[in-house]
């Protein structure tokens, strides 16, 4: 099955969600069936969800070894974190 049914990664935008979130993966012979399977495996078919399926093979991922190079520079420049600005009361949840 793994030969004929490649692995797909599934991203779902829930009814009240603003962005697609990665929810898991599944096997399917092609995109159309991957979408069908994603509905059955991950959504229980709530109305109004968006589904993206992407062949796992098409995803390029950063490697764990690069973590330092990618993220450290931001972490040790405290002035980059917008945490020192007084915010007016009226602005909630920023």
């Amino acid at each position, binding site marked *: 099955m793994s030969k004929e049914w490649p692995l797909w990664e599934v991203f779902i935008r829930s009814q009240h969600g603003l962005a697609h979130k990665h929810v898991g993966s599944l096997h399917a012979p092609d995109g159309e069936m991957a979408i069908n399977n994603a509905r*059955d495996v991950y959504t229980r078919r709530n109305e109004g969800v968006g589904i993206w399926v992407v062949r796992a093979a098409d995803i390029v991922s950063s490697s764990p070894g690069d973590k330092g190079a990618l993220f450290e520079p931001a972490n040790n420049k405290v002035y980059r974190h917008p945490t020192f600005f007084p915010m007016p009361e009226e602005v909630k949840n920023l």
Partner: protein
Amino acid sequence: MSDKATYVRRLGDNALILSQRLSEWCGKGPALEEDMALTNVALDLIGQARLWLAYAAELEGAGRSEDQLAFLRDAHQFSNLLLVEQPNGNYADTLVRQFFFDAWHYFLLNELAKSSDPRIVEIALKSIKEVTYHVRRSGDLIVRLGDGTELSRRMVQQAVDQLWMYTGELFSSDAADQAMVQEGAAPATEMIRTQWLQHVQEILGEATLQTPPADAWMQSGGKQGKHTEHLGYLLAEMQFLQRAYPGASW
């Protein structure tokens, strides 16, 4: 029993028995994704069965609940179509049974959504959302398997040929059906048959499969409580708990 009670109970029985059959696949599907999909369809159908049977129990007016209708009737008191009680067989058998049923179910529900009975309209509209997906999915899989490997094609064709004789009953029409048509509560079965045949021929054609002759000999009796040998076994399993521990609940 009124014609409407009979008609509504039949709809409930179809959904209930097919749901029970599909549940038998749980954990045994050919792939995890298929396993989930089949059991999802089973859950959709059990939900629909509950709505129809609850309404049928009301119409019957004998103080029975949907649970009593489901768990305390014997085979001859069930009025489901013979198609839905057929054994799961192999995966092609299950899919073809589903495909025949879904197509019928879809066209019927679309008409029932225009029923003169508001309760029927309500249940039909709720069910259509689910059944629209069922019919799309089973049609898609029939095409994939028919137009797949030599083996898959042969297996689907075999299933089509074997189950064909149970499709005539989908469009049989007795006194209860006619009474429902009279009062505008249900569509004429002939109309559904036309839509169903067109859809089935189209999908089977796309799947490179032969559609058996429309005028072939057909088996019927389910609607009148005359069932194949399979229903008794299915009920024995489904009703065991209520029979062994009457009134058990959790």
